Structures are given as C-alpha cells and as structure tokens.
C-alpha cells in the first residue's frame, strides 16, 4: 500500500508489467523523458530505450507500428498524449487494431493499450479537451476503460495490458495529480463497476473525473434528503450492466453523467438500455454540444460539475 498520484499509479502498474513480461513495450512522443505528464517517469532509465521507445511526431505510425508489433508478438502500450491527437491515428485504431483479429480469422490479434487522455484541461481549448469514449465503445473489437482514481488507474492499466485485446485506455488530464492509496494486489477486472456510495432514491452512473463531481453532488443531495447511489462504471466496454440494472431496479431512477458532449455520448447508451430493460425514468447530463472554449466562462460552460448534477438529481421531483 502506498500513496501515489494517478500518474504515478499508472507508472507503477507499467513498471510491474514490464518487469513481469518482456513482451511489454512503451512507444510514443517524449516517453523517454517520462512523458509530459510524468506518466512514464523513470521507465526508460529502468528498461532502456529499446523498450521505452521515443518516437517521431507520427501518431498514425505510432499506432500502426504498435499494430505491427502486436501482430509480431509484443504487447505495446501506446502513448497518444491526448485523445485529440489520436484523431491523427483513427484509421490505425479502428480499421487496423480493432478489426485485425476478426478480419484475420483469428490468426493473430492486435492486443495493445492505447493511452489517450480525455477531458478538460484548464485553458487548453477545443483541440485539447475532448472526451471521445463514446466513439470507441461503438467500435467492435475495442475495450474501453476510463479510471477515476489512482487505485483504479493502477489496477485497470494492469488488467488492460494483460487482457490481450486492443484497449482504448482513457485517463483524465485533470486527474494526473490526484493522490490516493494504492494497493498493488487489489485486482480490478475489466467490466466491473464500483458502487462508491449507496442510496435508495436514485442511481447516478458516472466515470472518469465526473465520478468526483458525482460523489460531491450525492453528499449534497443527502443533506436534502435524497439518497443517491453512485456507481463508477470504470470500464465502458464492456460495461457492468448487471450492477447498473440491479441498482436501477431498486431506486427506480437513473441519471448518467459524463463530461463528454451529451448528444451521442455514452450516457445515451446506458439510459436507452436501462429504459428498454426496466421501463424506469432516465435522465442524462453531459456537456452541451459546443466546442470547449478557452476563456474560463466558456470552458466552465462545458464542465459537468456538482451543482449541475445536483440540479439534475432534483429535477426528478
């Protein structure tokens, strides 16, 4: 058990995976100096430039080369800096990595972990602030992970590296410095949600940074007499349908909240699925369908914070 930041936790998971499995390699821009968020700190010193590979600014080829490495037996962890730049590698992620195993009739697979940080990052504006988890969940072949805590970032990164499938691994840029206790032996399987707070009146499903706003809003709601059950989905594909449905069946109300744009966000999938299955009342909260502006008031307009969540909770009446 150690107190680590979200970035350090990922680093520790990676170090352990690289120690245990010689097939695991890291590739991406600036990884040799530890990555611009420190999320690879010390790894090149420890494992050498052969396994922690600095690359040119060539996102398409970073991802495409990772596919080739995976087909040839390695397990690449691919650094994309922010998901916005991964847009330069979309063919490689979707047409090549995700579909390889299927198209090849199972002859090989492109197991790799693509680290593509999502979310607002104060003052970074429209090309450095997107949350695109819904895109990846829509693509057969990909698993999608979005951890909210240092513990989960440790355990889920380990699980993602071990799973053998291509994984869209979506850390949140405003969580890098968040500190917390991390137990090395606490395994978190992909696809399992965490019930972070129990409550009988409403089920609130969130992931990534929005989990923290959800917990804050739930505490405030409690003081107003509303019992909110907070579920951190953690993995978006596959998502933990059983846990969510069981909670919803108890509370009879669902609110899904995420920082991604509301229209076409993954909240729609969960809300639709729950409405279809249980016929209960559902609501969604997400960013308005606007790019993220630079100025603070504009940026704030795209933020899903506790106040908005509380308003949505209360709107169920």
């Amino acid at each position, binding site marked *: 058990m150690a107190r680590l930041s979200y970035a350090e936790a990922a680093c520790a998971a990676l170090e352990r995976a690289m120690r245990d499995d010689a097939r695991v390699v890291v590739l991406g821009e600036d990884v040799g100096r530890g990555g611009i968020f420190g999320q690879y700190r010390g790894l090149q010193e420890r494992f050498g430039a052969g396994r922690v590979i600095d690359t*040119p600014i060539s996102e398409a080829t970073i991802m495409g*080369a990772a596919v*080739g*490495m995976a087909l040839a037996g390695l397990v690449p962890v691919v650094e994309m800096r922010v998901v916005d730049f991964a847009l330069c590698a979309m063919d490689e992620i979707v047409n090549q990595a995700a579909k390889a*195993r299927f198209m090849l*009739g*199972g*002859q090989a*697979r492109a197991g790799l972990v693509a680290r593509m940080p999502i979310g607002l990052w104060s003052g970074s504006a429209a090309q450095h602030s997107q949350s695109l988890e819904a895109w990846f969940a829509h693509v057969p072949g990909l698993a999608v992970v979005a951890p909210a805590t240092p513990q989960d970032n440790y355990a889920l990164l380990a699980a993602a590296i071990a799973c053998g*499938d291509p994984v869209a691994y979506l850390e949140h840029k405003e969580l890098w410095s968040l500190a917390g206790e991390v137990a090395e032996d606490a395994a978190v399987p992909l696809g399992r949600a965490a019930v972070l707070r129990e409550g009988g009146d409403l089920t609130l499903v969130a992931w990534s940074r929005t989990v923290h706003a959800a917990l804050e809003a739930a505490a405030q709601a409690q003081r107003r007499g509303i019992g909110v059950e907070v579920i951190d989905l953690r993995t978006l594909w596959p998502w933990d349908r059983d846990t969510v449905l069981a909670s919803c069946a108890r509370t009879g109300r669902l609110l899904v909240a995420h920082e991604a744009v509301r229209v076409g966000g993954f909240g729609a999938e969960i809300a639709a699925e729950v409405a279809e299955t249980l016929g209960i009342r559902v609501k969604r909260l997400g960013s308005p369908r606007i790019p993220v502006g630079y100025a603070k008031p504009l940026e704030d307009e795209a933020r899903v914070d506790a106040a908005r969540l509380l308003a949505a909770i209360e709107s169920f009446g």
Partner: protein
Amino acid sequence: MARIRAFENAAEEASRGGVSAFGAAAAAAEVRVRGPLHLSTGQEAVAAGVCANLAPTDLLTSTHRGHGHSIAKGASLERMMCELFGRANGTNRGKGGSMHIADFSVGMLGANGVVAAGIAIAVGAAHALRLRGERAVVACFFGDGAVNRGPFLEGLNWAAIHRLPVLFVCEDNRWSATTPTAAMTAGEGALARARGIGVDGLAVDGNDVFAVDAAAAALLSEVRAGGGPRFLHAVTYRIKGHVSVDAAAYRDGKEVARALENDPLALAAARLGETEVRRILDEAQAEVQRALQVAAAAPWPDRASAYADVQDTGAGRWLG
C-alpha cells in the same frame, strides 16, 4: 508467376457470375467469388522476384492487390480460393476476403483495404523482430499511389532512424484506380522521395523477374547485414482494370498493347525452354482447378462464427 497468373484468371472468372464449369445453378447458389477483386495480372514478376529471396520466417505485408504477394510467399492456393469464395476453411475463415487475405503460417501478415496502411504495420513488425532478437526481415509491398499518403513518410522515416530490417517495395503499375499516378505525384519519383526521407535503394524493370530477383537479393543482403531499410522501385503495369468490374476504358489502347507485349510471363518464358514453360503452366492450371473444386464444395462459416474472434474482453455481450 504461372501460379499467380492462373489464380488471378480463375478468380476473375469466378467473380463474373460464377465459374462457368459449375453451371448457372452454381452461380445462383453463390458458388463464386464475392465482392471486389483487385487483380495483380501482369504484375507477377514483382511478387515472384522479391519473395524468391524471402525465407518462411521472413514477414510480408501487402495491399488490396495482394494475391500475388501471398502466393509468392507460400500461401496455399486452395485456402486462398476458399477465402475468396467466403468459405469457412479460407485462410481467414471467410471473414476477410480478397482484401484481407493473410497466412501467418508462412509469414504473410495481411493484405489491407486501406492504401499505405500496411507500411506502419510492416515497420512495427520489423521493430518487434529487432526487439525479440530475431534475424528475419520484413518485405512491405505498396502501390505507386501509396507514396502520396502520409504513412509513407512516417513509416520510412521510422524504419530509417531505427535501422529496421525492412525492404520497402513500391509496385509501380502507373495507375491509382482510374487516375494516372504521375499526374498526382511531384518530384523525381518514388526512389528519389524515399532517398529524401533517408532510405536508399534501387529502381528496376518490374516485369523482368530476373532483374527484380537480382535487385531484391542485393537489397535484402544489405538489410540482413543490419544496414537498415532499403527501397525497391519496380515499374510494372496493371493489365486489368482497377477492380474486377472495371473495364478500364479510360486507358489509352496503345498503352495497354505495349504492356501486353511486355508481359512478364512471356519475358520469362523467352529465357526458359518451351517444354519447361508448358509444364509449369499446366501444373499451375491444374492446381488452380483443384482449388476451385475445393472452394466450391467447401462449407460456409456458420453465423455464430460472426461473434468469434472479435475480442475476449466482454465476449458474449455483443447484442447488448
């Protein structure tokens, strides 16, 4: 080359409303090649000449026009034909078809439906060979149209800075679909472009299998010696249309006639004896006929297999 030519001719016929030998009923019953077919007819010398210099442990990536590369690398004609027919015992279990044929058992990592996408995959595979301490090399085929896509620059640069064991082969058939590539490509050509990025190599008459063989041998020995990537620019011609249904009426008749005179099989035959050539052609023909028979009788994949080999994580939740 003969096996490639025989395969392409048979596949072409089988894509046109069925294999005539099997009759109309067979055609109606989908006893035929599905989907678009990019034939490498006329380009056989590039595949044969390069792959003659590859060991089974060497790897290869290909393009949408990849039958020849697969055959030259040693893939089974029978399983390839089954794949084109969409059958369960195809190389890819009927999941890939012509544009995705792969045979990992002979180091053939896959055709690709996206122009130039194979380049990064080849580079990554070579990088893996290096890291795993293996001595094999990777041959990476692409068309002349691919030199205008970004991955060409990125992939060559990557291979060069890491001195990776890759032979890049630009199979220049002068056309990009219905557009003459020259009009869309600036500079002194593919090799000059490669050199500008830091990868040296050779240009060769891609219809002369002996010349291709010699150039590939020379370049591959440099690659195998640790000299880093090399580039082979092989000029050839696409005798057929871009895709099986394309009559290619947009081409100049004289250009096509010249190409037919320059047929790589005829050029090679001129250097072998008449009887030897006949024997090779007959054998190839017979092998392809057997492959057709097998493919036509082969089982379809069952629908449940549509859910197999997608991913393990969350397997079985696909309808959710």
